[in-house]
């Protein structure tokens, strides 16, 4: 069964360093998303991406964040200068359409900022 894959599963970084989280969405899906979940808290929307551009972004997704689909298969989230509060589980998701909003999530990348 097709699935969304994410790498790395866990990354530890120093505050101020750049981090790139990678995702391979399901191949025939057109809509791509990043969500994050701080430990013990709710799943929060970061950004949605369609047709090679950002569709929507939340207040969390500030200038330190960027997304890219560099080669038609990978979907990346970059954090330019990490802060302690960026420590969270980051989930990539994809969807074949936006008719009913059904998302298929990856297993997540745990980011720890020291």
């Amino acid at each position, binding site marked *: 069964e097709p699935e969304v894959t994410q790498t790395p599963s866990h990354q530890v970084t120093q505050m101020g360093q750049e981090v790139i989280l990678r995702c391979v969405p399901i191949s025939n899906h057109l809509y791509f*998303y990043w969500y994050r979940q701080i430990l013990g808290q709710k*799943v929060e929307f970061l950004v*949605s991406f369609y047709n090679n551009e950002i569709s*929507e972004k939340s207040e969390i997704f500030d200038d330190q964040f960027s997304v890219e689909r560099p080669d038609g298969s990978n979907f990346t989230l970059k954090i330019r200068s990490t802060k302690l509060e960026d420590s969270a589980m980051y989930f990539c998701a994809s969807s074949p359409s936006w008719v*009913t*909003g059904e*998302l298929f*999530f990856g*297993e997540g990348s745990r980011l720890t900022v020291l």
Partner: protein
Amino acid sequence: TQLLEQSPQFLSIQEGENLTVYCNSSSVFSSLQWYRQEPGEGPVLLVTVVTGGEVKKLKRLTFQFGDARKDSSLHITAAQPGDTGLYLCAGAQTGANNLFFGTGTRLTVIP
């Protein structure tokens, strides 16, 4: 930010008991999904409801979308230890390309 409140936040029950989890909002949603999340994994879609008043059944799980499309419930009959997990509701709104997730209900079913 659209707020989806789930209740209860935590629920611990004995195997075989029935339970209901609620998801409430003051906002109207075009569709609502229920997901289940295991520790260290991403949410997995259980069901999508679209029409006000809609009821969907998935084995021992019954999902209902409120008539006004502002709330939803998940009822589990004869809970099993395998039902243990974090249950999340998530709503989509017309014209918006994202999902708003609820606060979550952590269910523990004790054998």
